[in-house]
Structures are given as structure tokens and as C-alpha cells.
């Protein structure tokens, strides 16, 4: 019985191939402060004219997943309709002392830390309800973090289409090449979500990968 279930799970991609959904639910994942909300806002501003939430320099600004349904992206005559899920940043540790450095009171910092832990759990739970992932990495940081390795491993295990977004290429020490070298098995698109640099390449890659 276990073997049958394992085989069914393994070959579920065949069913997906023949019975394609007319709408894909795409999750935006990544560690805190990688630019997930900035990217979600960029996509929504470009295709719907509004935004999903406010980004912040303080880590764990997004502590609840936010869903925006029915975003239509048109690239080279091809239309892709997606639901976007902006997820809280994933982390293996959350220390409220880190928030004190941003001028938060101890009470606010502790509340933020508690909500952040709940946000991480919510982000992990969302993995079961998605059809594709945009994994946002800060191109100025070392990509070999446990969070990145765990997300990639889980997406591979679920056989979900993945697009790695090497964000913040407008910064001088950004190195998308380091991300490509770390995860050579997956497509990497270098962008600046904040400045909109190379964003058309991302839409093209999304249409190819998720369309």
C-alpha cells in the first residue's frame, strides 16, 4: 500500500502534464529581507496597478502569508494567469534581540518574534497548496544557507517548478553567478525588484516555467 502511494506521488507530475490548470498558484519564498514583498509589489504594480504589502528594512516584516488572486501576465503573446502568495521569510532561529537594534521596544520586539515564528510555520504549510515557486535570494549574500537548501530540497521532493530570483543586482557587491554556481540544477534570473532591472526577463522566465 505504501509502495502504491509512493508511486502515485512520484508520478503525479504526469497527471499535471495532461491536465494543466488554467491558473497557477505561485508562492514567493526566501529568507527574511531577500525582497519577497518588493518583488510581489513589482509584479502587482506592473500587471494590476496596486501592491500587496509594505516592505521594510526590519526582518520579518511579513508575518502572515498574503494571497492575491488572478494576476494576468502577458509575455510575447502568451498569457499566464497566476495567484501570488507572498510568504513570511523562512528562518531556523528568531531572536527578539535582533529587532531591538531597529529601535523597537522590548515588548514590540518580543511580539514581532512570536508572530515571526508563526509566520515561518505558515510559510511551510503553504508549500502543500502551490503549483510553482519563485525563490528569492539576496544576490549580495552567501546563497548556501540552510533555509535555501531546505526550500530547494522540499520543492524538488514535491516536483514543483522552481525559478530562483537573484535579487538586489543593483547593489555593487551582488553576485548572481554565486547563486547559479550553488544551485546549477535550477534556472536563475538576476533582477532588482526595487529598481525593476531585468524584470522583463523574469516575466518571460515565469511564462516559460509556469505557463
Amino acid at each position, binding site marked *: 500500500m505504501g509502495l502504491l502511494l509512493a*508511486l502515485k506521488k512520484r508520478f503525479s507530475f504526469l497527471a499535471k502534464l495532461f491536465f494543466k490548470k488554467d491558473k497557477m498558484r505561485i508562492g514567493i519564498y526566501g529568507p527574511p529581507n531577500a525582497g519577497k514583498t518588493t518583488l510581489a509589489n513589482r509584479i502587482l504594480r506592473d500587471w494590476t496597478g496596486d501592491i500587496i504589502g509594505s516592505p521594510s528594512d526590519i526582518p520579518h516584516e511579513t508575518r502572515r502569508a498574503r494571497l492575491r488572486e488572478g494576476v494576468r501576465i502577458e509575455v510575447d503573446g502568451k498569457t499566464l494567469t497566476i495567484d501570488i502568495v507572498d510568504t513570511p521569510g523562512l528562518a*531556523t532561529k528568531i531572536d527578539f534581540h535582533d529587532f531591538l537594534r531597529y529601535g523597537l521596544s522590548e515588548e514590540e520586539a518580543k511580539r514581532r518574534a512570536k508572530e515571526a515564528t508563526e509566520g*515561518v510555520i505558515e510559510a511551510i504549510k503553504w508549500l502543500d497548496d502551490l503549483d510553482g515557486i519563485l525563490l528569492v535570494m539576496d544576490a549580495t549574500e552567501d546563497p*548556501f544557507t540552510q533555509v535555501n537548501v*531546505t526550500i530547494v530540497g522540499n520543492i524538488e521532493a514535491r516536483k514543483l517548478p522552481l525559478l530562483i530570483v537573484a535579487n538586489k543586482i543593483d547593489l555593487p557587491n551582488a553576485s548572481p553567478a554565486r547563486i547559479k554556481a550553488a544551485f546549477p540544477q535550477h534556472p536563475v534570473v538576476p533582477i532588482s525588484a526595487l529598481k525593476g532591472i531585468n524584470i522583463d526577463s523574469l516575466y518571460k522566465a515565469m511564462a516559460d516555467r509556469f505557463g
Partner: protein
Amino acid sequence: MRRMEGVQLNLISKEMLGRMSSMEKLRMILDNVKEGKIVVLESGLTPQEEAKLIELTMLEIDHENFIGIEVETYPQKEQSFLSKIFGRKSGRLTVIGPANRLKTLEKQADIIKALVQI
């Protein structure tokens, strides 16, 4: 005899991990790490177990004594044909410790450098 000060390292063999269920492994890891110990797993965890470990860690963070974990592991290697069919993905050597004691210095495809604070 003079008592030796230091951080306890628990090295768990592949065979022992193979006999444990996912939940047993995760409970053993978290119980040890919360006591300040460093756990070294010879065969590591599957990606799903890693995600579950993060979830359980988040539930147990108390913002005073336990602020989370630091995990050091290599990325997955290419899978064999059979493991691709049956979805069995074995992890690689993994080191897990309390976040306030274990710090990653450098991580590459096949080398991990970490610092343990005594």
C-alpha cells in the same frame, strides 16, 4: 579527577537513524539541542524532515532560553535512478546545534566551517 568543561557532541550513526521514525529523530534532535548539545547525524535528514524540524523549532522558541537552531548540511547529491522512482532521498552529514552556540562561518558545496561557542 578534574571535571572537563565543554560542549557535548552527540554523533548519531546512520544505522541508528535508520531505525528511528521521523518524529523520533526530530524529538531526539530538539531535546538534545535545547539542552545545549550539538548533534551530528551521519546520514542527515530528508528535505521534508528538515522542514518539519524548522516547524517544530518555531513552536518551541521561548524567546528567552531557546531562540532556535543552527543547521549545517551539504546540499543534496544527484539521486540514483531507483531513488528517483521511489522518492527515497537520503540526507548527508548534518550538524545541528543551538543558534546561540553554533555559528556557520563558511559553507560551500563540500566544505562547512562552523564555530562552536563554549
